């Protein structure tokens, strides 16, 4: 593990401190950081300049869904740089539709299972796969639930009852300042977004940022009271996944989010620490309705960029690719 890992881990820890960082963990991290600082300052650990290349901003892996997901996360430094032993993880895939993986409306179950397995390998104490689907939950989550059954019962849940949600303030929001968020998410240490890449007839695309709407109770208010794109960005000021893994093995290029539409076979997984960068990369990489689009043409991505949530200028970011 190199110094960049430690810094980013430390920084993201601090950003996420509302998710609960125990005092002990904090002290340990401080100590580790202090150690790395001092060693690094002495020029002993890594040569200057190596940091920039060591971990890319965006990792792109091509191959079968499971292995590609693992390879993409490994390019970012491995799951260990996101999930510490004993931490609680929530994986948020898209499982909102009662359709098979070939329709590209849901995240491929193999991607979710691979992420789950990696979290377990990293020593996560509790991993939950959660969504708030639109159609009858049992039909929607079936595929992913079956894929994750090896990890135990209750691991994949579609939560609809308000009991499982808790009213939460969004302090950095501009308009959409308060919502009910899943208690499991509030209680977790690490949030991993694992959306499928698909078009969206209202917001252009539905990727990691749009997917955060699946962790709250009342989404309709985001449509009728607020401007939807602004509300999505507001929500993402609070729900910031530490790791984004976009399943673009199949891309629903038209008629999203529900389909049926044109499905592109891209065999690609995009991973990043930055949800805006990940989404922007996905927008730029594929054709939408047969056209090349720019990330700035997706309003919630450009608003998030302007508000400093992340970067959509992927051409200025370091992208690393791998074939598996």
């Amino acid at each position, binding site marked *: 593990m190199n110094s960049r890992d430690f810094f980013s881990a430390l920084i993201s820890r601090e950003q996420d401190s509302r998710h609960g960082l125990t005092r002990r963990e904090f002290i340990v991290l401080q100590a580790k950081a202090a150690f790395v600082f001092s060693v690094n300052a002495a020029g002993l650990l890594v040569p200057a300049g190596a940091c920039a290349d060591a971990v890319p901003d965006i990792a792109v892996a091509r191959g079968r869904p499971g292995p590609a997901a693992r390879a993409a996360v490994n390019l970012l430094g491995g799951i260990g740089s996101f999930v510490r032993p004993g931490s609680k993880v929530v994986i948020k895939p898209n499982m909102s539709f*009662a359709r098979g993986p070939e329709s590209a*409306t849901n995240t491929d179950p193999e991607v979710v299972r691979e992420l789950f397995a990696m979290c377990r390998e990293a020593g996560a104490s509790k991993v939950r796969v959660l969504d708030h689907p639109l159609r009858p939950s049992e039909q929607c989550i079936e595929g992913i639930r079956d894929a994750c059954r090896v990890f135990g019962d*209750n691991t994949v849940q579609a939560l609809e009852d308000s*009991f499982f949600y808790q009213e939460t303030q969004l302090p950095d929001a501009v308009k959409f300042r308060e919502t009910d968020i899943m208690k499991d998410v509030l209680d977790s240490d690490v949030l991993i977004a694992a959306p499928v890449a698909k*078009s969206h007839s*209202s917001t252009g*695309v539905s990727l990691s940022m749009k997917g955060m709407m699946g962790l709250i109770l009342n989404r309709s208010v985001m449509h009728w009271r607020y401007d939807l794109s602004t509300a999505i960005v507001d929500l993402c000021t609070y729900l910031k996944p530490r790791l984004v893994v976009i399943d673009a093995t199949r891309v629903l290029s038209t008629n999203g989010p529900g389909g049926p*539409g044109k499905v592109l076979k891209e065999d690609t997984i995009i991973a990043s620490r930055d949800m805006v960068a990940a989404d922007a990369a996905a927008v730029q990489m594929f054709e939408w*309705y047969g056209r090349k689009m720019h990330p700035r*043409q997706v309003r919630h991505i450009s608003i998030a960029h302007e508000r400093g949530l992340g970067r959509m200028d992927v051409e200025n970011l370091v992208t690393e690719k791998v074939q598996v």
Partner: protein
Amino acid sequence: MRFQRVIQAVMLGMFLCLLYLAAYPLVLPMGTELFLRMDPLVLAGTVLSARTVIAALLPAVMVIGLSVILGRFFCSHICPMGTTIDLADRLLCPEKEFSTKSLPALPAWVRIVKYLVLFFILGSALMGISLVFLASPLSLITRLYGLIIVPVGSLLASMGLNLLRGAADLFGISLLPYISIDVPRYALQWLVIGIFIAVFGCAVYSPRFWCRNICLAGALLALCARKPLLRRRVDERCINCGVCRDLCPMEAIDEDPLRTRHQECIACLRCVKVCPVEAVTFTYRGRKRERIGYGFSRDRRKLVYAVVLGACTALVSLTGLSRLKGPDEPGQIVPSGLIRPPGALPEPDFLARCIRCGQCMKACPTNTLQPISLAAGFTALASPVITPARGPCEPLCNVCTQVCPTGAIRALSVSEKIWARVGTAVILRHKCIAWEHDRECLICDEVCPFDAVSLKRAEGLSVSVPFVDENRCNGCGYCEYYCPVTGRKAIVVEPMNALRLESGSFRDAAIEQGFSFEMRQTSQEDRQGQEMHLPGFEDSLPPGFTQ
């Protein structure tokens, strides 16, 4: 405990189990509606008003046939209404428990009232108007348990679960994680509760007041059981103590305890048990003159009047403004909320058969089936309608079609049910977030299971706006349910184009009319070739993107 009590408890338990099992997913392929099919009034009223033999009501034929031999055993042993009234009597009036001694006798004409009402209802059924729902005991009791007790019970269970879980959380125990209990909600609770306040309240006056004086199914059985084969007989050991007379819950024993009003006797065998000298038996042999009749001869004319009055009332209701005839007849006023469950017969046949038991509403997993109030007239009161704002009609569910006791909703397979179109979604553009306020919203498109809603570019608007392809819409109401607009939704299901078939395949009829209800998960076609833009907007952006 007496044998009769055990049977009663078992039967009530069975009734409640079957009611519980009338739910999605349906575990029992058939039989959840068994008790409703035993109701003699449902049989007589529905067969007359629907003018057809309904094979599903065979159990009621058996009940009537057996009553010729066993008397009104159904009332004392099987009827869940009777058992519930026994329980209520015990709870409400323990001091008067099963004794009628202290009560003033009802005037003699009271006993004839139920027969008059029965003939009134049969008279209206002759004209094709079913009023069975007003008095069928099985329908009423199913409504009480299904639409009042089940929701309240679910609410209590849900509250209890959350309390328990909250307490467990305090101790750091994860108890029953992720289990939640749906609490259904129903309209027209006042009607059910009002009826039962009256029914149970009468316990103050006498035990089984309903069964004695009001129950029309009981009246019908009484007509068949005026001289059952097995009946109460008293032998010479009788010491005329009168205990049996005082304790008879039906007041079926005369001043002279040797004589019985057999049509009132429900064969509960209480008199056998309480007799100090064991003089009472229920056998097929015995002395003569043990029976006292009503002398129907005197009231025969009244009964004829009742039939005529019932028929005339039916005629009046046939001329009511809300009476619907065929689907294509002009000049009919169809209330916009009159969206019948999938597979419902054409409206007149549907109303002739529907007994308003609420079984379909209890079974509906999305709680969309609700009893309608007076919007479609008195004769449609409490009949089921789809209420999309409360819940969508789930395309992969066919439970309501499977639990209907009278076939008012035809039993359909899931693949057939999808074609039983219930209505059509209509966009109210003046309420729509996208159309009226030019803001991003796509929920109707996103949730439509049939992909019948699509977002397209429209002139003068910066956002994409929804359009309904009416030939793909089967009226399930997902769009209306999820539409974020409050008050009247911006996309609503109207009864327009509902398929109401008496017989034959819904699929064939739907395809013939040019409908196409491909579920999204079954549709493999690549619809990319279809037009995605309005004519004249070919150069516009894909939906959802900006410049």
